[in-house]
């Protein structure tokens, strides 16, 4: 069983985005976080103090743990923002802004 079979989904055709330069497939309707999880990625940020990896925690936009850089825009909440064809997603280090 998988989630798609469970709800008998017929997703629209997949498209490609990049994560840290690597191409991954994403589906229309997915958030950035869902696309990354689908690709087996669970961490896309390192903390600014200890440099520890983080990804989704609350999943509903409250905790800000899933911050990521999308199309050069830092501090985007991956769990809220829909993924779009051609998105360039990058691991966000620290505060995400260039010094």
């Amino acid at each position: 069983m998988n989630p798609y079979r469970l709800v008998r989904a017929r997703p629209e055709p997949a498209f490609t985005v990049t994560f840290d330069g690597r191409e991954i497939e994403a589906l229309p309707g997915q958030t950035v976080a869902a696309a990354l999880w689908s690709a087996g990625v669970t961490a896309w940020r390192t903390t600014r103090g200890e440099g520890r990896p983080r990804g989704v925690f609350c999943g509903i936009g409250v905790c800000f743990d899933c911050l990521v850089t999308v199309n050069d825009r830092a501090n985007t909440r991956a769990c809220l923002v829909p993924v779009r064809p051609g998105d360039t997603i990058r691991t966000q280090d620290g505060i995400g802004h260039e010094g």
Partner: protein
Amino acid sequence: MAKPLTCDVVIVGAGMTGAACAFYAARAGLDAVLVDRGPVAGGTTGAGEGNLLVSDKEPGPELELALLSGRLWAELAESLGPSVEYEAKGGVVVAATPDELTALSSLAAGQRDAGVRAEPVAADELPDLEPHLAPGLAGAVHYPQDAQVMPTLAAAQLVRASGAELLTGRPVLEVLRTAGGAVRGVRTDRGDVYAPAVVNAAGTWGGEVAALAGVSLPVLPRRGFVLVTEPLPRMVRHKVYAADYVADVASDSAALQTSPVVEGTAAGPVLIGATRERVGFDRSFSLPAVRALAAGATRLFPFLAGVRAIRSYLGFRPYLPDHLPAIGPDPRVPGLFHACGHEGAGIGLATGTGRLTAQVLAERTPDLDLTPFRPDRFPATHDEPRPAEEAQ
């Protein structure tokens, strides 16, 4: 009721000023007890930005106090520096127009005569000093002596370093007096603390403590908002503010005044002040005040328009009618001392205030003449508005 405590001095108020009084009293060999109805730094200290400024002060007694305090802060920073996040970042006051620059330059000249380092910055030198400032400014003055601490940490660390006993969550209900009228301690909701001296370091609530001792001290609240951004790299290097800020500080108006004061912090967020309005102790959020802050800050630093504010908070500056604090013994009540009413400069002026207070407590000659700060300098009026009734 708890066993009564006995000590040399009771300090009412565990904010920055009370902490500094405790610290310097302990250095003077006095045994101090600090009492506060809330936690440490629970009043104006915890709502401040932690400015240690000489730049915004006109020549006169407040500037002298600021210069003394600045020296003491620098000294303290050597032992406590990192734990209070002391940063000698310097201030930059910018003038938008040639007229403003003329006025600013003449202020700076006077300050220089009083011992302040104030370095003129030409318009074309500004990008080197602050690369992200808006273009088209007329010029600026750089004040290397301006510095910053994290005020809550500073208060808490000074209390700890003082070794004074800290009683938090203990409202002072009464200032105890002898038959002859002299102070003999305070009554709290959980017991008395006996001492021959009481220091009123209650900040914005200093008028209430003075009233407990039977004297009037017209401290009024002047509300201010601060905006805090998301963490950023060091885009703003100094404390940067517009020249009209100095005029706002000195103003007596009750209406909302805003002049942008922008600074980066070691922790990452940019802090944006400063609004001033006299609305009593109204704690409600004011969108117009915060909008004005954002507008002023984005005019000074256009890049901030795309930066997100994540927090805003407010505080009440303890303001006395002539904008000078009350420091020293109160001739009306033997044993009563005041150390409050520093308006928006309390963190910066705390060290000097603490030192002067300790000196008079120990019956030594204070480093500065306290006459301008005399607590009984205001005419005793019975019909003057009390802080709580000032709300519009």
